[in-house]
């Protein structure tokens, strides 16, 4: 009885959703709302207006800079929330010492050591070339964050902590919002709007975008690593 009720309810919810989906324009069709409003302008003038040849980067950091500013703040807040919740349940931070640590397979250790510099270089490449090719701060940052996590697994938590002291790490975790604040203020001084990008000397807008990319990348990587390390603490 209950089961039949659940199925009926799910069908009642799914029906209108599926009908609505069927009425949407097809994937890639020019009728899509995404193509009928601002996209035309982005495509036609984005490359010279936004200061980045990659239009996705131009939209994310320039046209929709405020959205990205908010997103970056949300990511930092998530890290702060994880730290706050996990810090509540125990006094101070104590790395886990429960039980005997499982020895890592030499294959894993060797492969990680071999690949680490290449992964780091790829992350750097993705951040730097975000202006002209797919990629950017978020993408490079997540790749670098994954690298930090996998390196922590191999070299051990103590060594990883020794390499990144607490005080600068906290500042690096806030690098995303801080870089937006700095670049936004520079933009306000140059154009009169927060996060405004000057058009005329292209180099200025390009270097502002690059500063944002690096801020997002470093902040994202450190936030991912920070959440992982916090989870490794004894709760």
């Amino acid at each position, binding site marked *: 009885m209950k089961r039949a009720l659940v199925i009926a309810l799910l069908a009642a919810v799914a029906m209108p959703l599926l009908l609505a989906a069927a009425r949407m324009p097809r994937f890639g069709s020019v009728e899509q709302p995404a193509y009928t409003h601002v996209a035309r302008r982005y495509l036609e003038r984005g490359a010279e207006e936004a200061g980045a040849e990659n239009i996705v980067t131009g939209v994310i950091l320039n046209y929709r800079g405020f959205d990205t500013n908010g997103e970056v703040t949300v990511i930092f807040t998530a890290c702060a929330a994880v730290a706050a919740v996990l810090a509540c349940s125990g006094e101070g931070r104590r790395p886990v010492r429960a039980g005997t640590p499982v020895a890592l397979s030499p294959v894993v250790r060797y492969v990680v050591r071999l690949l680490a510099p290449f992964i780091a270089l790829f992350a750097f490449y993705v951040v730097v070339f975000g202006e002209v090719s797919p*990629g950017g701060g*978020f993408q490079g940052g997540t790749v670098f964050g994954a690298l930090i996590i996998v390196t922590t697994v191999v070299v051990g938590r103590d060594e990883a902590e020794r390499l990144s002291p607490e005080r600068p790490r906290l500042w690096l975790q806030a690098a995303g919002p801080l870089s937006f604040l700095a670049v936004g203020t520079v933009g306000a001084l140059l154009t009169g709007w927060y996060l405004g990008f000057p058009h005329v000397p292209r180099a200025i807008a390009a270097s502002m975008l690059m500063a944002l990319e690096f801020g997002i990348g470093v902040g994202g990587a450190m936030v991912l690593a920070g959440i*992982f390390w916090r*989870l*490794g603490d004894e709760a």
Partner: protein
Amino acid sequence: MPIEMGRLFDLGLMTLLVLCALAVVRTKDLLAASIIFSAYSLVMCLVWDHRGAPDVAMTEAAVGAGVTTVLFLSAISKTVRKER
């Protein structure tokens, strides 16, 4: 009726996605569920790339398939492995 390769590929990926999603919900072993979820992310990464969003695909591979799985695993290692 000729079917384009691209659509066939899309169809295969979507089928895999649905299968992975069902498997994640049905497994009682949380460790296995995290691994299947990671596979789901990998398929999703292919879907993004095929749909012309390589930057989203890159993030999906690093965050969805990599970092989230690691976070799930460390959460499981602190709690229990079996779903009750």
